[in-house]
């Protein structure tokens, strides 16, 4: 199925903090086809600044009161020009939205547990994944790390879906003090033999590397959603490559837009 390219009206732009916002877009066709872990390419419509769209994991598939899909939201963090412009958008303004794109997460089911590991804005792909996991009644835990307690968002959402929350903050204001990998490693140690946890991860690259290595060390499978500078989202520009290694082959630079953004953590090669 080809991706859909639409000028999507901003339904709401909920500022969660001075950096984070959730941008809800009227894009029902995109929402209807999105699988957990897929992404959209977004920029303010009709502008040459920014010229290129930026990739965002679909955060939520939006539904109205009757359950009809009305669009998608993206979890935006102000980092550069483009994300700043998106943060500043008001309801009624229009963005160019292309998607859904990329390879989704493989959704596990019992007896395998699902452990989602999110760092900061890396929470983005886990709302849709948590919904799928809830549907299949998979035992789900969200390990969620942020700089401060105020930067832990959407906790109610995940609790409502029945996920166990394991929080950590760098300043220690909430949950374990330190990186999200601390409670993750403790849980990996405590996971009884014969049990399997699929470790899903999204966040800063050093965190992804640490999570993938931890999962491997404790013989657990992992799926990692990477973020790279991306030009087109369709495999045309070869900007977003990551080194991937299958078995004994030499590592190859593969395009994270079409072969990813979700990769088997054991196949990614870290610099």
């Amino acid at each position, binding site marked *: *199925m080809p991706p859909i*390219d639409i000028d999507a009206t901003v339904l709401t732009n909920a500022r969660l903090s001075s950096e984070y916002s959730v941008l809800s877009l009227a894009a029902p066709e995109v929402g209807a086809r999105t699988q957990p872990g897929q992404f959209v390419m977004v920029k303010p419509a009709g502008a*040459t600044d920014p010229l*290129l769209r930026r990739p965002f994991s679909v955060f939520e598939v939006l539904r109205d009161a009757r359950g009809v899909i009305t669009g998608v939201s993206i979890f935006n963090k102000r980092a550069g020009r483009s994300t700043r412009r998106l943060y500043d958008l008001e309801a009624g303004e229009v963005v*160019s939205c292309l998607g859904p794109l990329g390879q989704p997460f493989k959704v596990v089911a019992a007896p395998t547990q699902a452990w989602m590991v999110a760092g900061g804005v890396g929470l983005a792909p886990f709302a849709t994944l948590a919904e799928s996991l809830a549907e299949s009644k998979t035992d789900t835990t969200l390990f969620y790390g942020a700089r401060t307690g105020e930067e832990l968002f959407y906790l109610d959402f995940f609790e409502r879906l029945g996920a166990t929350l394991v929080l950590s903050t760098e300043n220690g204001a909430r949950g374990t003090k330190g990186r999200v990998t601390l409670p993750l490693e403790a849980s990996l140690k405590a996971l009884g033999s014969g049990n399997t946890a699929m470790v899903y991860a999204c966040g800063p690259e050093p965190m992804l590397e640490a999570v993938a290595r931890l999962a491997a060390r404790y013989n657990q499978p992992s799926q990692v959603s990477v973020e790279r500078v991306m030009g087109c989202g369709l495999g*045309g520009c070869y900007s977003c490559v990551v080194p991937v290694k299958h078995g004994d082959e030499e590592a190859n630079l593969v395009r994270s837009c079409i072969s990813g953004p979700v990769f088997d953590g054991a196949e990614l090669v870290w610099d």
Partner: protein
Amino acid sequence: MATPDLSVAIGSLKLPNPLIAASGCFGYGLEYDQVVDLSLLGGVVSKGLFMKERQGHPPPRIVETPAGMINAIGLQGIGVHRFIKEKLPLLRERGARTFVNVCGTTLDEYVEVCKVLSQAEGVAAIELNISCPNIKEGGIQFGCSLNGTFDVVNAVRKATTLPVIPKLTPNVTDVASFAKAAEDAGADAVSLVNTFLAMAIDVETRRPKITNVLGGLSGPAIRPIAVRMVWECYQLVKIPVIGMGGITDARDALEFMLAGATAVQIGTQNFVDPFVWSKVLNGLTDYMTRHQVAHLSDLIGAFDPTPPKAAHA
């Protein structure tokens, strides 16, 4: 008025319309199979191909700049043999007119790759990449010297009967003289421009924004310079000129054609809007209807240098 005729000819090569997907901006064409019917394009230029596979540069490979982008992909590619085996049959099946962008680190490599392609079925033309700014050896070394340009075109000319189209770099003082050298060596056409050598610095970290430090600037930012260069080449050579540089819509394409381009390539805009093709085709048809142009090829070089009227005469 009859259906507007958008066809153009590059030597013996007839294209249904002048819109060609630019090398490096369209993968191997098949990546865009889902969003555009490849047979509707005038042509598709492959990613640059060497004899062997290449990994390219480590990321980050691109950075956005005002109305443009700088890239240093480093010609990651699957090599000519895998291209012929894995991509060409599928392109043929889809009715694409496939131009193959040929790279080389040595003159011999250009010749050998072209010989291999000459044996393959379904290659419409060869675009000689003597202008990639992002690799250390070969390529632009030929494209930045008049003798080098002549020698590589001449050698390839002798090795193949396929149309040979050197792609010229704008990173020279007088690009038209390079078009002339290519023409003298037997080129069937020239395409221009490749990207402008550029760099961008992150002032917070004082480091380059892309790993290769230097890269090539493309996008709307370069269009006026590219139009000027096409105009200069059109005036000096008799062979067709294929123009490119920041084309986003039909007006941009027409600007290049009026300046002398027989056909145009669309590159960076594929990243901005993968559905650009039908929009530009419709825009060309609209323009022809509005201006009662029966044959689009009548507009090639139809630029009128009479000064514009002053706004307040």
